[in-house]
């Protein structure tokens, strides 16, 4: 979706503010919010892409006005309510008012060390890759109202395939609960001027990780 989350190249957000000796979590609730997200995603009821979509679908003013972990909290609440795992009346009350649903997986403390490793998103390829390193490609001019990983600033731009990264779960369908639909993934490199025009920093190159359906030959 062409949402506020798609920030690459936007102006007006000001300086980056590094924080010396930054703690991992700035308050206990941030750690709990993070861990609740991890524990609930372990249950397997949604994909990483659906969780991202839930945060992207927050109203723009909420997205911009909320700290990072507040967005995670709001996104988690919306998934839990959407899937009928709990009602907003229960979250408001701070207590379960009805019995829970049966989950197929529940994260135990003993299993936590095994969840510190990223899952694999590689999948068997349904067919040969269409492009190879060195190929010139143009990103498509797509504007789906749902989740996509082709950023706005890199649409309808000509770049060069730098690397083939394997065949992966396709976020655009996985976010909709429509399955993995594995797609070839490429690193595509753009010159700064192709993205930002003549006034671009002359030494700049930017790459994105682009799924094959985002690309056409150029």
């Amino acid at each position, binding site marked *: 979706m062409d949402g506020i*989350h*798609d*920030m*690459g*190249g*936007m102006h007006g*957000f000001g300086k*980056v*503010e*590094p*924080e010396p000796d930054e703690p991992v*979590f*700035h*308050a*206990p*609730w941030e750690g*709990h*919010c*993070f*861990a*609740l997200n*991890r*524990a609930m995603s372990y249950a397997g009821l949604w994909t*990483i892409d659906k969780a991202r979509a839930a*945060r992207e679908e927050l109203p723009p003013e909420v997205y911009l006005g909320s*700290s*990072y972990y*507040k967005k995670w*909290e709001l996104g988690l609440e919306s998934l839990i309510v959407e899937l009928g*795992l*709990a009602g907003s009346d*229960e979250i408001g*009350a*701070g207590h*379960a008012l009805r*019995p829970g649903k049966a989950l197929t997986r*529940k994260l135990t*403390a003993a299993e*936590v060390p095994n*969840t*510190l*490793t*990223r899952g694999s*998103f*590689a999948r068997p390829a349904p067919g040969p890759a269409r492009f190879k390193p060195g190929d010139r490609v143009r990103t498509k001019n797509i504007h789906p109202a749902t989740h996509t*990983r*082709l*950023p706005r600033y*890199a649409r309808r731009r000509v770049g060069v395939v730098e690397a083939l*990264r394997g065949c992966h*779960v396709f976020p655009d369908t996985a976010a909709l609960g429509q399955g993995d639909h594995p797609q070839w*993934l490429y690193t595509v490199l753009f010159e700064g001027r192709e*993205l930002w025009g003549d006034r671009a*920093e002359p030494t*700049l190159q*930017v*790459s*994105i*990780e*682009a799924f094959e359906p985002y690309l056409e030959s150029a």
Partner: protein
Amino acid sequence: MGHDEHPHEHDHHEHDHSEHGSELSEMQLRVRALETVLAEKGYIDPAAIDKIIEAYETKVGPHIGARVVARAWSDPEFKQALLADGSKAVLALGLLNRVGDHLIAVENTPKLHNMIVCTLCSCYPWEVLGLPPVWYKSAPYRSRAVNDPRGVLADFGVTLPAETGIRVWDSTAETRFIVLPLRPSGTEGWSEEKLAALVTRDSMIGTGLPKQPNEIA
């Protein structure tokens, strides 16, 4: 923090503090309510929640990435393996029991500086760097890294030669990137442990450079 820097002793800090305080307590209540409901429904085990927090606060962090970089600086064969397949090479190092797929190490050279961003959300190599800092997830960084990386570097107090190429990697998929920074000169013969002390988190994101030998005791 020195005593004279205590937040309550400066007006502007006090103001910040109270504003944060009201949001924090609201969020503290909201997260507690959610956690209680999820636990009462039988969906989560509170002991698992505590264990996850502990792991990310105490076990996973940029000290792991620093060891990876120090090894790559010391061992050309490891460096080649790391650049060829980051996940496999880091696993072989033995610092972690498992490493997820698609970790990609990108090498800085005197002519090229790499910088990692996720313009769409907050993708970051957790296994080797821990959880990302607030600035990495913030609108200023996500918006500017791809079109004004030198301006971003200036925010970090870093200036590169004008002729140095800048390569920005937008983490738009499940590949994850770590920068292999340039080894500082004057470190010939150093142990891996000593080299690792030069490797900052930001140098592995590309918003900083490693410390110089005279910066560590």
